[in-house]
């Protein structure tokens, strides 16, 4: 029998089954978010119909809004990718916030100088510098883990907090643009920013880079030897050691990689719509990223959807609080419940079984 298209081109992996679980998780997250948003609009706002419209339609209602929502998702997706890379190696690094913030600061610092020297070609270089800053912030945790087996969870959060204070001080102090009324660094020249692909939306190349990164990561974990070793190491270090994997490198490299990704995301934020580094701009992206990674079930393929979901919640709730009187924190609350719902499903299933 002649092999059909599927058998001829279907590439089998040696990976575990369980692909549909991610789809279920995503759909459940979307459904619960939508339901909660609708409830919030109905009960917390005095103009439910305009709140509903603002929440659900405004972020996607026009082409510009839709693209801007996608752009919002880009740095979040890259940060969440960093979370996945680190968590799947068994390193529970919580330092993403500081790494992203440092990346924003470093990029905003380097961009004007690089732009003068190189013109628009400075953009990728500025992002690289941001990524390096993120790696630098991650380095103490990586070194601690490699040399002393130090708990990454603790070291990462301590370093990150310190970095946040330091960058806050730097942006508000010696590096502040005194001619501006905002507490921010100097606004970057237009050409030093990520080029806008479809004004008036805020879409830049960052969205494309984020998507590409997610696909590359998916390929890495599913189809490369290092990715398989990375994953097995995260599940069981002893087993990985006994198979001859380079456990020494795996004890620090994923942590640094996560720092690179968070730093790059921070750089993208500074070189995007904001146009500079503003004090406080990292705004909880570290935590949102962990949530998005959870919703995506630690699978990079599902990340773009999870990130867009979160971006929609952020944008929708902000629009709803602008265009109707929905409290602005409704979006954050919904996000929290969605994360809870998604991670509680195994617990609920277990409960049902026991009963």
């Amino acid at each position, binding site marked *: 029998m002649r092999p059909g298209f599927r058998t001829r081109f279907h590439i089998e992996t*040696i990976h575990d089954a369980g692909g549909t679980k991610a789809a279920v998780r995503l759909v459940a997250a979307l459904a619960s978010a939508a339901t909660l948003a609708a409830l919030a609009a109905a009960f917390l706002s005095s103009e439910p119909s305009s709140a509903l419209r603002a929440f659900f339609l405004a972020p996607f209602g026009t082409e510009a809004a839709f693209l801007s929502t996608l752009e919002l998702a880009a740095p979040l997706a890259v940060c969440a990718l960093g979370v996945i890379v680190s968590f799947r190696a068994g390193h529970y690094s919580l330092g993403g916030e500081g790494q992203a913030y440092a990346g924003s600061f470093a990029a905003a610092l380097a961009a004007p100088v690089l732009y003068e020297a190189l013109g628009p070609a400075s953009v990728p270089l500025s992002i690289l510098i941001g990524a390096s800053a993120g790696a630098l912030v991650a380095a103490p945790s990586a070194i601690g883990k490699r040399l002393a087996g130090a708990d990454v969870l603790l070291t990462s959060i301590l370093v990150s907090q310190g970095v946040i204070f330091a960058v806050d001080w730097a942006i508000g102090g010696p590096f502040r643009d005194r001619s501006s009324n905002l507490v921010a660094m100097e606004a970057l020249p237009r050409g030093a920013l990520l080029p806008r692909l479809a004004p008036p939306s805020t879409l830049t190349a960052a969205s494309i880079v984020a998507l590409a990164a997610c696909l590359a990561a998916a390929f890495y974990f599913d189809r490369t030897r290092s990715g*398989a070793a990375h994953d097995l190491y995260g599940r*069981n270090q002893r087993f990985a050691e006994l198979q001859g*994997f380079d456990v020494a490198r795996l004890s620090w490299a994923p942590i640094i990689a996560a720092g690179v990704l968070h730093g790059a995301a921070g750089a993208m934020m500074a070189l995007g719509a904001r146009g500079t580094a503003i004090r406080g701009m990292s705004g909880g992206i570290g935590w949102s990223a962990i949530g998005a990674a959870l919703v995506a079930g630690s699978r990079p393929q599902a990340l773009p959807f999870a990130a867009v979901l979160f971006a929609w919640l952020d944008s929708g709730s902000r629009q709803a609080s602008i265009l109707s009187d929905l409290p602005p924190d409704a979006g954050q609350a919904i996000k929290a419940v969605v994360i809870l719902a998604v991670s509680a499903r195994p617990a609920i299933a277990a409960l049902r079984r026991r009963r």
Partner: protein
Amino acid sequence: MNIVRLSSIRKYYRSSAAQALDGVDLELDSGEIHAVVGENGAGKSTLARILCGFERPDSGSLYVKGERADFSSHRDAERAGIGFVPQYSMLAPGLTAAENVALGHEPRRLGPFTDRRRASYEFSLLADRYGFAVDPDAVVASLSAAERREVEILRALARGGSALVLDEPTSILGEKETASLFALVRRLRDSGAGIVYISHRAGEIADLADRVTVLRSGAVERAFAAADVDECELAGLIVSGAACADPDRTEGGRTAGLRGGAAPGEPALVIRGVSQRARGSGSLLRVDLTVRSGEIVSVIALGGNGLETLEDVAAGIVSPDEGDVLVKGRPLARWPGRELRSRVMAYLPTDRENRGLSPKASVAMNAVAGRLFDYSFSEFAAGARPLADAAGMLGGFGVANWKGRRVDTLSGGNRQRVVASRELSGGAEVVVAANPAQGLDRGARSRLFSRLAAMRDSGSAVLLLSSDPDDAAELADRSFALYRGRLIPVERGESFEAAFSKALTGARQ
């Protein structure tokens, strides 16, 4: 009197697409030992779990003392008087024996506080009644495997059970411990309890059981009184086609001593002056052991004498406090990880779930994990060659029906086969095999041993660590016993079993 009756039990596992039980009937009367036997994957464990309330059947019915019963959890089964002793310990290692037995039903003092002394006392009462000698206040982590087994049994009995289900209870016991277990089981039977005894060891069944039910592929093949068949036939029923052998010796023992290759060569694995302090009684005291290429050396020990520590040292998991370990003349610590683990040394661990497998990864991944980096980038990305390799390895060790499945959906015996297929397919020069036949039925065990013998014949050095003297009898060229951390050689000349018993219990030669 009939205690438990199962009727037309069916169970289908969607996750592994397997019909685990297909219309099984089983009856248990008081005062009888009913053995349930079968190969790996025949459905024995599933039956036990349904009987004890850990799973619910898809269809069929369960009767306790004539009345229809429906267990929604194992607590219902406990309340109905059915106790479960699992194959792998489910005790809390950090608690004492008495605390483990009382877990969930702790005697209370002043409201929410546990009355420890009362729990200890009740434990002692129970232990005395059944002739156990375990210290109620000993922490479980410090107990030997046999003692832990006793605690498990006491736990099952503590709820006042009339029925007990024992799942492969002797799989980690030595000979003497097995004998005392049998004595206990007979005492329980005589006192009126009904016992479901799950095993694949024909010798034990022949000694112990009153009735036997043989499962094959989820269905009952035959059910009969034990007196009606002899051990040989029984063995044949368990593994269809297995040849009969001398009932004093274990099956398939033809590999022992059979040498197809040359005489032993250079020392491949040298354990030199190794002392290691370990928790409880697991220390090693100046152990010297050399395994040359082309020979199988076995070390047999009961629990608590240092076998686990020897395993850790030989496999390079821990560095010994004193002495060193050399592989092919080079200290173990100096070997680059990948070369040592992928090419030179094979290791079949006792702790299969934590050292031998990645349970949530696929079977195929577990199979090729040891040779990941032997593939090129494009080969691995395309996936065809690793899959084909996995198919070859797994097929060679009799693992079927593994495509697209996670390793934790396989039965215990099949999982052991996966580990063996990964470690032994590559032609390693040094093999450290610790309890390699754990969970394997007769047929699989003999195949595995044949493979080890074949590797020996082509020049590998095999170190066999086990708590079953039969392993040594079948396979080893040279044997040692390990007693309280010291190696005692066992000569082949004298009655093998006698010599072993002496060595295992420390009696002077």
